[in-house]
């Protein structure tokens, strides 16, 4: 487990290997989204990674800057046959995915 906490967002990487899980806790906004992008970027580039799960259960706030990181990761993985899975979004996050037409485009558990 590698932890990384700063104002507003904690990022934990679990289950390193072909199917890593990234657990987010806190707020994903224009201040914290670049750190999330930095954390997920090497995973989405790693050839041995076939799927990344992003656990959103602990996300209290997410805006378009956070969604853009998720969209970019999904595209990068899909290009080489991988997939991004969003796990356990809160009702508010699910609603955000719905109004931005991403609920059907992304893999949401």
């Amino acid at each position, binding site marked *: 487990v590698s932890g990384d906490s700063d104002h507003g967002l904690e990022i934990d990487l679990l289950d390193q290997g072909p199917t890593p899980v990234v657990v987010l806790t806190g707020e994903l906004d*224009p*201040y914290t989204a670049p750190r999330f992008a930095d954390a997920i970027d090497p995973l989405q580039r790693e050839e041995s990674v076939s799927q990344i799960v992003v656990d959103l259960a602990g996300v209290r706030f997410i*805006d*378009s800057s956070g969604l853009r990181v998720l*969209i970019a990761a999904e595209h990068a993985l899909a290009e080489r046959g991988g997939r991004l899975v969003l796990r356990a979004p809160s009702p*508010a996050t699910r*609603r*955000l995915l719905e109004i*931005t037409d991403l609920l059907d485009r992304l893999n949401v558990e």
Partner: protein
Amino acid sequence: VSAEGEVAPAGVADVQLSFPSEARHLRLARLTASGLAGDLGFTIDEIEELRLAVDEACAVLVEEASAGSHIHLVYRIDPDGLVIEGRCATDDGAGARLHPVAEAILSTTVDEYRVLVDEGQKCFRLLKRPTERG
């Protein structure tokens, strides 16, 4: 919300907030919006929508703000809802550009929104009306 459907009587003082145009301070704008909306009797969903809208609008200001500038916000309680106006100095004279995702969020979460450039300042105005409740 009064029996006449007004959010608050006229004459309620504005709330003003000013902070450096840095992304780390956006949570202040969200926090103020949710506090005021809660006081006005907005539902939890409406508060969440307003929090999201003010964050998106302020993010546009931060993105194109002049170095060392401040974002100035005014939260005004109008008879028909909560109005939030924001402005910040910008070096970018082009019209306001919204990412399609941000545009989708703003068009869904508030009743009215406008983002524009006026005399060297990037500005926005949001209006959120409470849902009529019986």
